[in-house]
């Protein structure tokens, strides 16, 4: 549990990065949310056997990380954290899909492996883009932007509460498991029984604490709407940002840039 705890503390660090002051940070949140959405759609909608066409899309996360001054290693580690889940989802592709569709010398590569790699690439891209969005915008502002872009307010606020609840849950679970460890005298586990009651207890405690946090929010004038501390408007820089990136994404989606480049090179040097 301690490792989950640390992972979430890192998530808070993601939120802290949003206090930065780069040109990307200063952009209106709606512009960044919009671009990230278009990016995600363009990446996800690629064919399942598509791999080379995905590579040029990496330009977006790379550019954003450098423009927003985000720590690249930290973001990569966050993405790597999700790898086991993605592998679990994609690992059956090579098992079921054994048709060889690519011949590299004497080694035949099955469609399963290609689609597996494609899933990995797509999730790295989209998850990375989401992390970068939060790190350069802040979760509150993202939710607000979603609301501004037409998501019902109830959902936006729910999303924010869910996000906060994750923190509460892990902090409480960290505490509970520490208390248990301290009194378990070095014995590793105390069986499923104690674990069951721990989980039940944990739910009650987090629920209670979430309730108290909600009270404290009400006491400070919370009326169901979140206000971002950065006030901005959708101006010329935002329009430019959205247009330029979405034009690129749409081009990359319908033109396989790697192939284009490849045929150009082979065309020049036959």
């Amino acid at each position: 549990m301690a490792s989950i705890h640390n992972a979430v503390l890192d998530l808070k660090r993601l939120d802290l990065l949003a206090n930065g002051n780069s040109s990307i940070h200063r952009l209106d949140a709606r512009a960044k949310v919009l671009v990230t959405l278009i990016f995600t759609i363009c990446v996800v909608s690629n064919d399942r056997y598509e791999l080379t066409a995905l590579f040029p899309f990496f330009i977006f996360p790379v550019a954003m990380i450098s423009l927003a001054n985000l720590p690249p290693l930290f973001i990569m580690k966050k993405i790597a954290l999700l790898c086991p889940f993605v592998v679990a989802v994609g690992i059956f592709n090579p098992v079921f899909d054994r048709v060889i569709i690519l011949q590299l010398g004497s080694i035949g590569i099955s469609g399963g492996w290609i689609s597996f790699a494609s899933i990995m690439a797509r999730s790295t891209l989209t998850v990375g883009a989401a992390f970068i969005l939060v790190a350069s915008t802040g979760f509150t502002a993202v939710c607000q932007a979603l609301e501004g872009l037409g998501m019902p307010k109830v959902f936006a606020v729910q999303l924010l509460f869910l996000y906060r609840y994750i923190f509460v849950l892990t902090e409480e679970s960290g505490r509970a498991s520490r208390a248990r460890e301290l009194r378990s005298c070095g014995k590793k586990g105390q069986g499923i029984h104690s674990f069951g009651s721990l989980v039940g207890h944990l739910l009650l405690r987090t629920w209670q604490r979430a309730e108290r946090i909600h009270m404290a929010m009400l006491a400070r004038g919370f009326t169901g709407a979140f206000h971002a501390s950065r006030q901005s408007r959708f101006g010329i820089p935002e329009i430019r940002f959205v247009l330029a990136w979405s034009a690129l994404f749409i081009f990359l989606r319908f033109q396989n840039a790697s192939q284009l480049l490849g045929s150009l090179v082979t065309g020049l040097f036959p």
Partner: protein
Amino acid sequence: MTTPVLELHEVSFTYPGGVTALDGFSAGITRGRRTAVLGRNGSGKTTLFSLLNGLKRPQKGVIKLNGEPLRYDRQGLLKLRQAVGMVFQDPDSQLFSACIYEDISFGPLNLGLPEAEIRNRVDKALTQMKLTDVANRPTHALSFGQKKRACIAGVLAMQPHVLILDEPFAGLDPVMAKEFMVVLDQLHQDGTSLIIATHDLDLAYAWADDVIILQDGHLLTQGKASEQLVLPSVHNELGAAPLVAELGRVLALTGTDVYGNGYHPRTGTELVQALIHQSRQEIDP
């Protein structure tokens, strides 16, 4: 007589589980004064505070702010929370933002203040609570006392007329407690009505103008701190007496009346001064 800033008439509150935390409770808070609320664990202090801030609604009775019954609609509650600020007992249930700066600006943002005003207020609150150095630190990477101060700053930034604090001194080191006392005195001078719950009788005796003493959800007694905290019935209920009051009583039994000339020592230092004053008078009357 001016109207009390907050008053409760026959207020009863029962928790969903069936525990009646307050039962036919009536009391008044005088404007601009320092009120200490005392009572044993579970006597209903925290419940009382949540009622005053509109977080809970009494099943019976009326609560009035400036002579007007509380309104529980959205607008009424927002006004109430602007007027009556509340700092909770447990700092961990109050800080929910990534960093302190963001957390303190939460209240002013909800009040819909302009950006520059919010920045001013947050900076002022940070300075008041000596948090400027840790303003951008993540909230989870703070000591208990720092978290506690951050909670107080979050409410100060809303600039309420009435400030309610549940055990504000618990967990602060003596230096911080003293400095916070100075902040409270400043607020008091600016006209803020202060209400604190505490288990520290000496502090209540030294600091408070008025006291409200609870006993199992009922009002045991209410009045001037100097008059109420010397009553044997109060000592019985709370299980202790303020040290200075005890000393004064014992001295009076031995023939030294420190309460002469209407002077009322409230702290150890004041008591010593009163004693010195008296012995001088005995030497040359």
